[in-house]
């Protein structure tokens, strides 16, 4: 019996070994190192003096950090809510379609989601190009017949990038909503139809309340994902004005890789890290209490 136990431990060690090695070296150690680094005044590569909480004081009062925070919050606001609403509407519509037609329509919405961010960037950068972009056909009438840059001016930048992001990531949310809609028993709708309830009434009284748990999930997944935003915003803002449109991850990137301030970059990363953990815990609480109801 004891031999059995020992051989089980040995097997476990072999099976868990690679995991422990990978996560130890690439997750646990960098995390510890990040926290330590955040208390030092160090360049990106190399060591520095221990400065206590100086970096935190500095970053938290840094104007650019505030800018990054508000830009990120603005981006979250511009993407998460429209994305959720549009995805839910599309999902209910797609869910009504039949067989092959449904597959085709779903593929149209889903295909963008699996494309690399740089493909999305190149495609849309071409579409919104000031001189030759197709989007100018639609934009010109609103700009007194003149072509208009959709990313080169600060007010237009975030809404445009948010629009592209919604187009890009919508497929994921639609998929989750469809999964949720399929779980609603059709008998409920049949009963409603017998009562001659209108489509809109069916949606507000049956679909919406029953789909709410999925909606909460979709909202929080997006919220956490968009806090980590970097790729699109960085790509669209290449060529200057990065400070005006900077996001939190871009801020970390700037401190570390453009200004060689390893310590401060680690501090900013720890702050981002903290925000996401708080949100994750909140999400977990919300979804768990919802599950218990």
């Amino acid at each position, binding site marked *: 019996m004891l031999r059995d136990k020992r051989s*089980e431990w040995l*097997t*476990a060690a072999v*099976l*868990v070994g*690679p995991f422990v090695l*990978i*996560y130890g*070296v*690439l*997750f*646990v*150690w*960098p*995390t510890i190192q990040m926290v330590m*680094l955040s208390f030092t005044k160090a360049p*990106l*590569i190399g060591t520095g003096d221990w400065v206590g909480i100086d970096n935190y004081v500095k970053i938290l009062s840094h104007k650019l950090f505030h800018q990054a925070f508000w830009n990120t919050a603005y981006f979250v606001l511009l993407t998460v809510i429209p994305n959720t609403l549009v995805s839910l509407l*599309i999902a209910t*519509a797609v*869910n*009504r379609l039949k067989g092959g*037609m449904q597959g085709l*329509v*779903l*593929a149209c919405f*889903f*295909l963008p989601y*699996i*494309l*690399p*961010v*740089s*493909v999305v960037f*190149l*495609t*849309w*950068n*071409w579409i919104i190009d000031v*001189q*030759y972009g197709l989007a100018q056909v639609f934009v010109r009438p609103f700009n007194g017949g003149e072509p208009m840059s959709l990313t080169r001016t600060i007010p237009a930048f975030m809404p445009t990038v948010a629009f592209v992001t919604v*187009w890009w990531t919508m497929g994921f949310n639609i*998929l989750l909503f469809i*999964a949720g809609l*399929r779980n609603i028993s*059709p008998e409920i709708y049949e009963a409603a139809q017998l009562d001659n309830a209108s*489509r809109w009434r069916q949606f507000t009284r049956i679909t919406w309340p029953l789909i709410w748990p999925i909606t909460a*999930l979709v909202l929080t*997944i997006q919220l*956490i994902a968009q806090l*980590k935003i970097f*790729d699109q915003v960085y790509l669209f803002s290449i060529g200057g004005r990065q400070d005006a449109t900077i996001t939190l991850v871009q801020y970390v990137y700037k401190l*570390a890789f453009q200004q060689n301030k390893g310590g401060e970059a*680690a501090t900013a*990363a720890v702050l*981002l*890290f903290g925000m*996401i*953990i708080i949100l994750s*815990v909140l999400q977990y609480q919300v979804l768990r209490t919802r599950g218990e109801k």
Partner: protein
Amino acid sequence: MSAEAIPSTETIAAERSRRDRPIDLIGLALSLLTLVVALASFFPIYWAIITSVKPDGEVISGSNSLWPGRFVFDSYIHIWTNTNIAIWYVNSFVTSIVISALVIVSSAGCAYALSQLDFPGRRVIYVLILACFMVPMQALIVNHFVLMAQFKLLNTWAGIILPQLIVPVVIIVYKQFFDSVPKEFREAAQMDSAGHFKILFRIYLPMNWGVTAALGIITFIGAWNSFLWPFLAATGEATMTVPVGITQVKDAYGIVYGKLMASAVVAGLPVAVVYLLFQRRVTQAIMLSAGVKG
């Protein structure tokens, strides 16, 4: 958990009863509207493809014709001969395949141990995985960079691969599936004196082959698409992956949208093909991982 991209018998029945109603004009209009919105959503991809096969002159003539006057593949030939796209392709394929293989193998083993074996430290490891789930990898870029620099792995395949091996969701999904395999299978195999490795590779993995396929495909797509880390780890054109490399395609003669679209099409092609071939597996994997996140 068993969400599949096929309509259940109930929905089919519901649709049949809907069809029996006289003429559903609103329903028809809604369906048509959905189709139009779907085509609009697909349009940017179409536009990128069509631009890539138009002659340069037509691209910048402002004609915006939805069909090329003449199909030319100059843009593809140009990027093939004038950029390192072939090398980026090799880099992307090697790193993505190695990442998927390593993630699947190490996660399946770890999940089996967590699910079926009793050993010290089991709880600690599970808590670690859940913790890892919450941590944004984007917050670790600075220290990953420092670590890879210390190992002298920047601008190498290993440097691109290593930090991307952290995919906790794969372990959690595997564990859930292994937990649901009836214990009798394992006990019967153990009666025949099969070891744990044999049980894992002959029973547990084959029983969950569909899950492995789904997770493998989604890991591959994720690795192929990842931008931030390869962008930091590969600064030389020789080690860039396709999604990073194509942002470098520039031309000395101004507007090169035809060529840019050709490189976009080439970069998106592998994942688009994988998706179109394995649609159901991809959607299944996404629903599985979303289920875990909830």
